[in-house]
């Protein structure tokens, strides 16, 4: 029997990590991630969690210590945000290439400069090529569920890949919501004990992390690409099993009121819930507006995404990051995913919610209206944005 409790999303992640019986936590504090390691440290201090908590001196070391712990077969967890993810950037690549299934919660945060501790998706986008499985949460329940699920998928012997669980800084990480907490026995049923076949061990000396001369480096990368492609199966299987045990189901692309939708709004993360309210209002008015949300960001869910947008006339991508000189990183991928489709919606890109800028219902009303215009007539602006002040002359291309 699940218990319904009020939990901050960060604490939901910590609780999931505890119930996963993690062995090693290695973390460095950074706003807005702090509530996650704080809670875990507290659990260890109180004896509620039998794990090693390594209070490292940087995020670079946080991930590095996770690699060391993973190499000896420990179940490992860390959490970070924004600058922290950037500081550990090179180590993030190593985790996936060496197939260490480190689980990391990222309380998404904007990147300096100027300094901002508040939320957007710049940090998540900067690591999209690192070979990690990346999923986004919309609420505290998902933060709990996807953390448990991340261990199940990442540690699968067919996968052995690290997983990033994204929760928006503050607008999700610091929000308290009702969460259904399962019984430990249910978690144990879903998540088997981790056994790492290649653990460093004096009885079976092994070399981890040899270097790749030109004669072999390329083959290692191809092998990694194959593994990454194959992990999709386990991702879906993991969600299937999750439903069987806990009754909640997740999809690579979540759809909301998409039936016969002419206009589709695409969102990622916690603002999806605000967008849903606006979609409801539009439907009330008789407009055929629907919403899709990318839950799985890596591997990119091509098939599910194409299926979700099939039949729509307009797709409006709302995103919280800028790729300078390109536009929005998400819309670039979305367009590329649609390129080979016989019929495809017109696509508009609108950027907002940067550095903690809030997105109100009115803002999403604007996103839908302006998005339709842009999709139809194109844009003469450097960037199409929402909720950002700027001289209209300067924005002309």
């Amino acid at each position, binding site marked *: 029997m699940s218990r319904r409790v009020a939990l901050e999303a960060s604490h939901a992640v910590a609780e999931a990590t505890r119930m996963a019986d993690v*062995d090693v936590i290695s973390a460095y504090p950074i706003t807005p991630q702090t509530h996650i390691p704080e809670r875990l440290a507290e659990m260890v201090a109180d004896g509620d969690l*039998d794990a090693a908590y390594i209070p*490292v*001196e940087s995020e670079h070391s946080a991930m590095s210590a996770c690699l060391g712990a993973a190499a*000896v077969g*420990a179940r490992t967890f860390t959490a970070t945000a924004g600058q922290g993810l950037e500081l550990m950037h090179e180590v993030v690549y190593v985790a996936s290439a060496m197939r260490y299934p480190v689980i990391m919660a990222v309380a998404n945060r904007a990147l300096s400069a100027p300094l901002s501790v508040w939320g957007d998706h710049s940090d998540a986008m900067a690591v999209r090529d690192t070979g990690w499985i990346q999923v986004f949460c919309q609420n505290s329940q998902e933060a709990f569920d996807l953390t448990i699920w991340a261990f199940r998928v990442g540690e699968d012997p067919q996968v052995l890949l690290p997983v990033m669980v994204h929760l928006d800084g503050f607008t999700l990480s610091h929000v308290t919501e009702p969460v259904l907490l399962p019984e430990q026995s249910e978690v144990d049923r879903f998540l088997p004990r981790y056994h790492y076949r290649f653990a460093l061990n004096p009885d079976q000396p092994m070399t981890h992390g040899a270097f790749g001369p030109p004669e072999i480096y390329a083959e290692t990368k191809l092998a990694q690409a194959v593994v990454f492609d194959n992990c999709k199966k386990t991702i879906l299987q993991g969600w299937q099993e999750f439903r069987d045990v806990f009754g909640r189901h997740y999809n690579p692309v979540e759809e909301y009121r998409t039936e016969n939708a002419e206009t589709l709004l695409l969102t990622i993360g916690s603002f999806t819930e605000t967008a849903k309210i606006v979609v409801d209002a539009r439907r009330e008015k008789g407009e055929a507006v629907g919403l899709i949300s990318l839950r799985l960001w890596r591997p990119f869910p091509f098939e599910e995404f194409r299926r979700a947008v099939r039949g729509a006339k307009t797709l409006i991508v709302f995103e919280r990051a800028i790729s300078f000189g390109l536009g929005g990183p998400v819309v670039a991928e979305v367009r590329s995913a649609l390129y080979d489709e016989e019929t495809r919606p017109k696509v508009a890109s609108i950027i907002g919610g940067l550095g903690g800028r809030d997105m109100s219902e009115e803002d999403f009303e604007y996103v839908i209206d302006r998005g339709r215009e842009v999709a139809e007539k194109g844009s003469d602006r450097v960037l199409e944005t929402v909720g950002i002040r700027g001289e209209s002359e300067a924005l002309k291309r």
Partner: protein
Amino acid sequence: MAITEVKFGDRLLTSKEFLAEGHNFCIGCGEPMAIRMVLKTLGENVIMAMATGCDEVTTTPLPYTSWRIPWMHTLFENTAAEISGVEAGLKILMKKGRIPERRITCIAMAGDGGTSDIGLQALSGALERGHDFVYICLDNEAYMNTGIQRSSSTPYGASTTTAPAGKMSMGQITRKKNIVAIAAAHGIPYVATASPSYHFDLMRKVRKAADTKGPAYVHILTPCPTGWRCGGDITVQIGQLAVQTGVFPLYEIEHGRYRLNADPPRLKPIEEYLKLQGRYRHLTDDHVAIIQEMVNEDYAGLKEKAACFPVEAKE
């Protein structure tokens, strides 16, 4: 060949080699000498994390490996953090009964760049946190793997490719960073310097470091014929001269107490050490005099520290 204990001087030493033949170290390199001694001392119950550098690239070109011990490498500057994870992971897995309880020595090994420069933060963090591990720095006094660039461990007067001697320059104008004192300043239980030219001393210190509960730091000077511009056949001799001239004294710091392990009645003139190495070829007599003064000063300082803690009986 059967593994036996062989007589080595007055000790017994395993004939087993944990660093296999076929690696790509330069001829006469001091590093494999030191590594072999370290591993013969500690045996097979070890796990090693190694930084990017000469020893890593010469021993593990995929799909080959020279390591007959469990060994890992990820990056350049994170070795101390990595071994922190190894140590913490082993401990908790043993506590939870997931792996059998046993004594495994966790070794981190890195060069002088990976220790004194880019890896300093991770090292400081790991020492401060008190993990039970042995950190071994193989100091060849420059970034040799990338082509003899200066590091903060390069001594005053040495010519390197990024601090070259020239008409307007005498090479390195800074003094070698005292990473040994920095390690000791963390208040860790055991710190030592060692040289593969003094194998018994080196092996005794490595043993002691491994037996120490908590962090131990061993700084080993490993002559580099390629970067020091000297013959590959005088590695041992150069290592001896480094000690005999006082430029690299052998000492231990136990819980902050200094002890000199070799204190020759009279130090040999530094010139004897410098003249064998092409990296000092450009130095004038005046430069040599300055270096001599530096060595005298540092050595006197060390003796002062050691004198504060007189040791009654020699080991």
